[in-house]
Structure formats: structure tokens, C-alpha cells
């Protein structure tokens, strides 16, 4: 209302009460504009104007009203309320007539008619102005979120470390209002690996900036390879003086010795990690206050040994606090149970995201960032998630060829032909070539459709590698943060034939049945599938399946 009143007063000539008519020339009087007058919503004059039938003579009012005093002080003698849909949207304020005569009944009638017609137009103008202001606010917030997203994604690891006998996976999906999740990997000269996951309170740019600061401080604190508790203690002391009030950071820091599977960890108030071991899951408990709350905190240190087949899951609360349409939470017990059920088949992230999708249903609006980091002890020491596919790989892996496939329906046939031509020279049995071709086709289709949304300008990268005993095809799309939907269960053909289920859903099932090993990993930018097959002839190569 204030804005409108101010604008309205600018167009009506009024005389200041402190000035006399005689003291000014007519031309000066014409130029006079009343000063802005604020009317508080609870001022009694508002109720009076709403009930007034038309023009109101200000001098005749007897109200205990600051606005009335202001009107009088501004020289307003006649006020005509502008009322739209029962709401006072403005006033037409007039000073004395230049003729110094009273306003006539005709004048009042004309002003009342004018007010009746002007009020809706004024209301529309107010709404337009409010909407413009809201749009500017929204745009500013969106811009801030874009900046926050850029800060976070720039600072998250672009590649996963490669460790013989270990497989790392990471997934990060920011919410629309970007939170402060982060994860990091620190590789030490002695071969040990530091794993960090954290979550900054708050959202947007402030959270992203604190995340960036915390990440730097942790890296500084950890550079000498000290124990996790010491590192968190040092990072906390570095962070405390600078962190904005009411903000803090939960953080878990673990150090893995890949040679022995020994894992040390300390926790600054972050969600407890889980370890999947022999079909059961265990919480890794260690106590400690979040970073940035108060200096000189002590962080309890714990340790464990990871055996072959064990998988460590680090995660943020965006997963466990996701809600379904009934407002039930995904919850810690559900997550712990899923980690236990999952076993060690190599794609825990994908499995959990499928479970999350099933839980939240279609149209879920993600409330918070979802971050998952997995560390699996594969125990076999062979191929990991390298991204530099043009180099000779560890363990005797050699890149035979790599090429892009434009993401368009049907282009999986090109991937099949290219892979066939490349692996034929390896002397792979015919039956295995056919299996590999079909698996490649299905994985490429998934990558083109789900990873790259069939955007032709976003190619799928296909790489063929071989070692002495195996051949591998890596298919990578740009679907980081948007994982490929998968079907982890055996399709129920009876249900499909009874039309109780969609007839589709065969892709991943076929892949799993056609290759010796399927590996899936994601990071913020890519989704990668690796199809691994023995080069050696096996008994079933000569038998009909």
C-alpha cells in the first residue's frame, strides 16, 4: 500500500499545511507534490476508509491515527479511498482547490467515479509490480543456485581413484535448492586412500562456499597422512573462527590401507556409514561433534578390517530423509536393511537408487542433495574404473580401440559391428562374440536412451580392452547424477504374459546373462558400464544353451 500511496500522491497537487496559499505563486502551487505517507495496516483510518462511501474531508475526521496526522501535515483536505475487492489499495489525496473554494458535490461525484474506475486498474498495476519483484527474486535465487551447483560440481572429484582389488563408486545428485553435500578422495604417497563425505548445513551459495572452505581445510589438515581423528580435530580448529554463525559441517573421514583392507575412521556428527559383510550390514560408530561448532573438540577413532566382498557405504541424509507420497521417510533402518540384503554384486549405488525410486514413486521432488560413496573390496586386483581409456591399463589391460557413438535410436548396431570387428582378432569363440555383441547393444541402448536422453550431439564412448585372459567393453554416457534405470530382478515372464507387468525390462537381465561380469559405476558426470568376458573357450561354448 505504501508504494501505491507514494505514487498516487505524486500526481495530485496538494499544499503543505505549514505553508500558506498566499506565500506561493499559482504556478508553484500547481507543482506541489505531497510527501510520501505510510499507512500502517492496523491504523484505524484504514477501517474508516474501507467503510467510507466516497470522498472524505480530512479536517472533519476525529481518529487517533498517525496516518491522519500525516495527511493533515501534508495539506491534504480531501481523500478519496481507492478500494478494490474490499481492500484499500490507495488514496486520491487532494489539497485545497486552487480557486480556494470548497469542493462541490459535482467535484466529489466526479472524484468518486474516478476512484471507482481507478481502483481496479491500480490493483492490477500493484499485482504486476509484485509479480515483477517476485520474478526478479526467483531469478536471483535461481542464479544463486546455479552458482552453488557450479561451485560444488567443480570441487567434487572428477575421477575415481584406481586401486587394485578395490572398486570405488560415487553418486551426487543436487536438489533443486542445492545443499552442501561433498565427498573427496585423498591419495597418499604410501598408497593409502583417504575418503571424505560431508554435509554443510544450509543451502545455496552460503553452503557451497562453506563446503569449498571445509574441503580445502580438510585437505590441508590431512596432507601429512595423520590419523582421521587428528585430521578432523585440526580441520575443526581451522574452520571454527571463520564459519558463519549457525552453520556447521558434518563429516566422516576414513583412511584405507588397500594392501591390508585396514580402515581407520572418525566421525564429526555425520550419518553412520554401513559395511555390508556376508549378507549383513554393520554401522561404523565413532563419536564427535560436527565441524565448526566449537574449537578444541576431540574425535573418537575407530578401525576395522575390510574383507574381500565387503562394501562400505558413505551417504548423506538426502537419501535417508527422502519421503514417499505418504510422507514416510526412507529411514536409516531401511537403508541398513538394504545394504545387508544387497550382498556384494558390485553395484550398490545403482541398487539403492532403484530402491529410492521405488520408494518415492514418480514425480518425487528431491528435497536435499543425495550423495553416495561406495568402496568395495573386490579382492581380485583387476580392472577398475579408469577413465584414461587411451592408456595401457593396469594388470596387463590394453586398449584396443575407443570411439564415440552418437546417441540416436538404432546406433547400437554400429557399436555391435565395431566391437565385433575389434574382438574378432582376439580369437574369441563365435558364440562369445555373439553374446558380447548383444550385451554391448543393450548397454549402448541404455546409455543412449537413459544416460544421454538420445541427444545426438552427446555421444556414448565405447572402449574395447583386452588382457591375456579377458576382453572388456566399457560404455560410458554423460548421465552422471541421472543413473541408468535398471532391472535388478529376473523378469517375471508369466506376469508379463498375463499383462500384469510391462513386456519390457529385459536389457540388464540379458546383459547379466551374456557376459561373465558386469560392472557399473557413476560419478557426477558419467555413468559407466563395463562388460567383461573371458577370452578362453569354455565348455558351454560348444553346447546349445
Amino acid at each position, binding site marked *: 500500500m505504501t508504494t501505491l500511496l507514494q505514487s498516487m500522491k505524486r500526481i495530485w497537487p496538494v499544499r503543505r499545511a505549514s505553508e500558506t496559499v498566499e506565500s506561493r505563486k499559482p504556478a508553484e502551487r500547481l507543482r506541489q507534490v505531497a510527501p510520501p505517507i505510510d499507512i500502517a495496516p492496523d491504523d484505524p483510518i484504514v477501517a474508516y476508509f474501507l467503510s467510507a462511501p466516497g470522498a472524505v474531508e480530512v479536517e472533519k475526521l476525529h481518529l487517533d491515527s498517525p496516518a491522519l496526522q500525516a495527511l493533515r501535515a501534508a495539506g491534504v483536505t480531501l481523500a478519496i479511498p481507492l478500494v478494490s475487492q474490499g481492500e484499500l489499495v490507495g488514496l486520491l489525496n487532494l489539497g485545497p482547490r486552487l480557486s480556494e473554494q470548497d469542493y462541490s458535490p459535482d467535484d466529489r461525484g466526479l472524484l468518486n467515479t474516478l476512484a471507482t474506475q481507478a481502483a481496479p486498474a491500480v490493483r492490477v498495476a500493484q499485482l504486476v509490480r509484485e509479480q515483477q519483484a517476485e520474478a526478479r527474486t526467483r531469478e536471483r535465487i535461481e542464479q544463486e543456485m546455479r552458482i552453488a551447483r557450479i561451485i560444488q560440481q567443480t570441487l567434487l572429484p572428477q575421477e575415481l581413484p584406481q586401486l587394485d582389488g578395490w572398486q570405488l563408486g560415487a553418486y551426487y545428485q543436487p536438489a533443486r535448492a542445492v545443499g552442501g553435500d561433498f565427498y573427496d578422495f585423498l591419495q597418499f604417497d604410501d598408497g593409502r586412500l583417504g575418503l571424505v563425505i560431508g554435509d554443510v548445513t544450509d543451502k545455496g551459495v552460503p553452503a557451497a562456499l562453506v563446503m569449498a572452505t571445509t574441503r580445502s581445510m580438510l585437505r590441508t589438515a590431512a596432507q601429512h597422512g595423520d590419523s582421521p581423528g587428528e585430521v578432523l580435530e585440526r580441520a575443526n580448529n581451522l574452520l571454527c573462527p571463520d564459519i558463519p554463525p549457525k552453520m556447521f559441517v558434518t563429516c566422516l573421514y576414513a583412511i584405507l590401507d588397500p594392501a591390508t583392507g585396514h580402515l581407520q575412521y572418525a566421525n564429526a556428527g555425520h550419518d553412520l556409514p554401513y559395511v555390508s559383510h556376508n549378507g549383513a550390514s554393520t554401522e561404523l560408530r565413532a563419536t564427535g561433534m560436527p565441524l565448526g561448532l566449537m574449537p578444541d573438540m576431540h574425535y573418537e577413532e575407530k578401525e576395522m578390517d575390510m574383507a574381500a566382498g565387503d562394501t562400505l557405504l558413505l551417504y548423506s541424509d538426502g537419501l535417508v530423509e527422502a519421503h514417499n507420497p505418504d510422507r514416510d521417510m526412507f529411514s536409516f533402518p531401511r537403508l541398513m536393511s538394504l545394504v545387508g540384503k544387497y550382498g556384494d554384486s558390485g553395484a550398490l549405488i545403482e541398487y539403492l537408487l532403484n530402491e529410492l525410486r521405488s520408494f518415492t514413486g514418480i514425480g518425487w521432488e528431491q528435497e536435499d542433495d543425495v550423495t553416495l560413496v561406495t568402496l568395495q573390496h573386490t579382492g581380485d586386483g583387476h580392472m577398475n574404473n579408469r577413465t584414461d581409456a587411451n592408456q595401457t591399463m593396469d594388470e596387463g589391460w590394453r586398449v584396443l580401440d575407443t570411439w564415440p557413438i552418437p546417441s540416436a*535410436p538404432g546406433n547400437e548396431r554400429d557399436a555391435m559391428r565395431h566391437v565385433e570387428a575389434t574382438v574378432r582378432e582376439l580369437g574369441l569363440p563365435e558364440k562369445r562374440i555373439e553374446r558380447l555383441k548383444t550385451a554391448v*547393444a543393450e548397454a549402448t541402448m541404455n546409455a543412449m536412451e537413459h544416460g544421454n536422453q538420445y541427444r545426438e550431439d552427446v555421444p556414448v564412448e565405447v572402449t574395447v580392452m583386452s588382457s591375456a585372459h579377458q576382453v572388456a567393453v566399457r560404455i560410458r554416457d554423460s548421465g552422471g547424477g541421472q543413473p541408468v534405470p535398471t532391472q535388478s530382478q529376473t523378469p517375471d515372464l508369466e506376469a508379463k504374459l498375463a499383462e500384469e507387468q510391462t*513386456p519390457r525390462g*529385459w536389457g540388464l537381465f540379458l546383459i547379466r546373462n551374456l557376459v561373465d561380469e558386469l560392472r557399473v559405476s557413476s560419478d557426477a558426470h558419467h555413468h559407466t558400464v563395463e562388460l567383461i568376458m573371458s577370452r578362453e573357450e569354455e565348455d558351454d561354448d560348444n553346447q546349445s544353451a
Partner: protein
Amino acid sequence: MTTRALEAYVRHKKPRVAVIDLHGEINGFAEETLNNAYAEAETEQPDVILLNFANVDYINSTGIALIVTLLAKARKSHVRLYSCGLSEHYVEIFNITRLADFMSVFPDEASALADPAIATEGK
């Protein structure tokens, strides 16, 4: 894109047996052709519809889904769906997906038509 569009030709063989000869690829693009051919095969109310895959060189997971749809239709209308001419690899795929449990798989058209069930009905 380097796909080979599916072509389908329907032959009505023997009393109450229709053969659908398929040529090309069975993928997402094949849906209309496959469904039209199946509808045409059904017009003479056959007891058996034989899908002849001898000239099919590619079936992907979407194609499998299309075949599942045909099989569901056939079961609903009490028509037996047979297949023949599959390559060794696609016989394996039919076994993996268990399609072979629900539709008889023959090496070729002659052996399919010689199936005692068809031979009996044809008499």
C-alpha cells in the same frame, strides 16, 4: 542410424496355420509392422501362428518385449505361437528369457509344419 527396417509377409499355410515371414531387425521400430502382420495372420482364425525368423539378423530387448506382447495376445485368443529359423544365438536368447518355454522353437519352417500338433489339426 544403420538399422534395417522390419518387413513381414503373411502366408496362410495348411488349414488353420499362418506363417509370418520376418525380414530385417526386430527392435523398437518394428512394432507397427509386427502387430499389423499378426493382425493379418489372425484374420483366418488360425490355431497356430508361426513366426519365421530365418531372415532376422537382430533382435534387441525391445524386440523381445514385442514378441512377449504377441505371445500374450496369442495366449488370450488361444492361438499357439511357434517360432522357427532363429540363429543359434537367438535360440539362446529365447532360452535365457524363457520365451522358449512358452512358444515352441523349431529349426526351420518344414520342421515346424511337421509338428504332430499341426499335422493332426490339418487332417
